[in-house]
């Protein structure tokens, strides 16, 4: 008799914990403010310049300069 009561109590406790956990999780699906993605540079930071013979586009990690170039990339 006493064993049966303990078994029933444990079963009810488990069901209750499961049900309450399910209710909590469904009510808190996610935190919309959570930083799920790392911050990345925006592609819109690119600047495009039309020049004689073509177009030059510079992304945010490449800076233009007025210095005299030490060398160039070219077709060989």
């Amino acid at each position, binding site marked *: 008799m006493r064993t049966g009561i303990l078994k029933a109590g444990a079963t009810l406790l488990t069901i209750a914990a499961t049900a309450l956990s399910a209710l909590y999780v469904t009510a808190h699906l996610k935190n919309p403010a959570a930083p799920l993605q790392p911050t990345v540079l925006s*592609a819109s930071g*690119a600047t495009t*310049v039309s*020049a*004689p*013979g*073509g*177009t*030059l*586009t*510079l*992304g945010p*990690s*490449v*800076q*233009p*300069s*007025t*210095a*005299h*170039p*030490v*060398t*160039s*990339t*070219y*077709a*060989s």
Partner: protein
Amino acid sequence: MRHSGPVDSHHFEALGTNCSLFAVGLARGRLLEGEFWVRRMGARLTRFSPDSELSRFNASPGSWMDVSPELESLLRESLRAYEMSSGLVNVAVLRALEGVGYTRPLSDGQPIATELRARPLPPLPDVLAIRPGAARLEPGAGIDLGGLAKGWMADRLGDALGPNALANLGGDLSARGMGPAGDGWPVGLGGSTVLLRDQGAATSSVRRRRWSVEHHHLIDPRTGLPAQTGLEEVSVVATSGAEAEVVAKTALLVGPAVAPAYCAAHALAWWLSP
């Protein structure tokens, strides 16, 4: 740590083109060592010498051949380039180059224009297998490492020459460190000057190495013929010289409609010339 100051430079001809090495705060002897290394690698990787390691590999299809660590690294880089370009950068291009008449260095005379016949290149992973210290080429296939080798060599030179150096091998270049003024290496790109810091650049073009209206060196793997895409020249800045070479060639091959989006996804800066 900043390494700014006067630039030492060293210029020489190798790999069938002009090469330049620059460094800040480096003994001049190191730049000469760089030249010797370029010449050694050039002799090993050229397809125009029957004694080169690459020519011996091309001449031994169907069996595993021991390869040097450098050739193994380049062949692995070639497979990576094939994947990165969705097959548009394919070093199994030797037979197609021979088919359009490019059988000798241009310094030995203009190639003879041949009749053009479409023959798509085989997928590189189908004809090239690599295992540690050895590689295998399928019969009928041939490898030409071309610009990919120059970009790969520029990257290794950039690493070897110290923390503030630039290697330019025929337009394929690799810049390391903060340059002579501490704000990057000033490099010409599409008529402008940009500052490169731990980056590479390359140019792919059909304006050079051309011997008729239809014949030039840049083969489209989809046809096996010289590329006609509506773009004639593309210059790219990327995270390394080898990567810049792959992106520039791919952008030229996909043409003007797709190249801007492709470059926006893969390049740090780019020059497109129709």
